[in-house]
């Protein structure tokens, strides 16, 4: 059973058709990279897979569950790290993590929280309001959330932006770790070089349609 299965998916925002008949299959334990220009529909595809948008037509299946009727079941095993950081500015890192995980029914111990924050390199700022964080620190905090939630499926929208060199390595390490425990990752990026190290498959969205791609082709062009 593939982890993510997308069949003839189309989506339009009003009269503007963003996705056209996208078909895609990602098997468990692999990482898929989506490439494409701005406005090519990458984020829309991710949002549909995260059950945040209803597809205009076509169907999606995640771990064998229908994306429209079984939303709650899918959401339990899926985490979407979107472009927005999903963090409350007035709360500090610990409180943000506690709240975000409580909505998923998880209640980590202070020790676990501390460990994870240390791992993503912001342990020293644990009790600082997120308002004062930089973009890179917010990104690291999002990955701390993903580490604690340990979802089967991870959707990443531009995971490498705003991160420094050590941050990129941290994310790549974490992606390998997820793949090792048979998790599945779908990420969109403008930065193929950083994604190439960890991902097995790659696709290109253009004019709202998905074209198969290989890393070698990318080199040629």
């Amino acid at each position, binding site marked *: 059973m593939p982890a993510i299965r997308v069949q003839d998916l189309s989506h339009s925002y009003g009269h503007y058709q963003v996705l056209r008949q996208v078909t895609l299959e990602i098997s468990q334990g692999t990482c898929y990279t989506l490439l494409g220009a701005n406005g090519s529909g990458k984020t829309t595809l991710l949002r549909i897979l995260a059950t*945040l948008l209803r597809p205009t037509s076509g169907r999606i299946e995640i771990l064998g569950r229908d994306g429209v009727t079984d939303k709650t079941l899918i959401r339990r095993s899926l985490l979407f790290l979107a472009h927005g950081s999903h963090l409350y500015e007035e709360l500090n890192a610990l409180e943000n993590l506690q709240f975000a995980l409580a909505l998923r029914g998880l209640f980590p111990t202070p020790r676990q929280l501390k460990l994870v924050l240390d791992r993503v390199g912001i342990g020293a700022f644990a009790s600082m309001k997120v308002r004062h964080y930089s973009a890179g620190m917010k990104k690291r905090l999002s990955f701390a959330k993903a580490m604690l939630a340990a979802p089967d499926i991870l959707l990443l929208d531009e995971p490498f932006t705003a991160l420094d060199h050590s941050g990129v390595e941290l994310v790549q390490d974490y992606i390998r770790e997820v793949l090792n425990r048979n998790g599945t990752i779908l990420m969109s990026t403008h930065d193929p070089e950083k994604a190439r190290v960890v991902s097995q498959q790659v696709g290109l969205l253009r004019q709202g349609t998905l074209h198969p791609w290989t890393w070698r082709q990318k080199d040629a062009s």
Partner: protein
Amino acid sequence: MFRHVVQWVVWKDLLTEFRSRETLSSMLFFALIVIFIFSFSFSMNQQAAQELIAGIIWVAFAFTGMIGLGKSFSAELQNDCLEYLQGSPAAKGAIYAGKVAANFMFMLIVEIILFPLFVIFFNLDVIEQISLLLLIFFLATFGLSAVGTLFSALTVQIRAREVMLPILLLPLVVPVMIAAVEATKGALNGDPLPMYQQWLELLAIFNVVFTVVSFWLFDFIIDA
């Protein structure tokens, strides 16, 4: 699970408010100005105050409530937090319940701070009726926040949301306003309870109907 989500949403809203003091301070300040403007524009004697005061109180409360309700969900827009609420496996009804509870608390706190000011500025005599007045405030504020939270979520993702919230909400809460004003008037006049009991019943019916309906419809607002 449901109870935990409600608790955490309330906790999050209260903590945010405690740190920023944005909502409560703006509500209080606005309400104070409303009281002053009213007393200037009506230059009232004791008798006129008796007639008008209930209406003034509830107009002030309703408009301050609008401010609190408007802020309730627009705070979730920062960093796309609303998207996380939508995508989380938590029951949307629980998020609604938590938000209603938080809004209810904010509005009630403001009302409890403001009411003594009304008593002082307009020379009201309320000592005997205080428990009944509290009951009226409680019921009417709950009605306002139950429908208001739904409409706060509805207007937050549209254009011109500051205008649309009162435009959509005020016609719908007319029964609450009428009942609250009439009941408050009765209580302030020291009328016996049976004379305005029907208004309390109306408030109770409104609250039950619209809590259930909003609880059900909130899913469709927040989730695709």
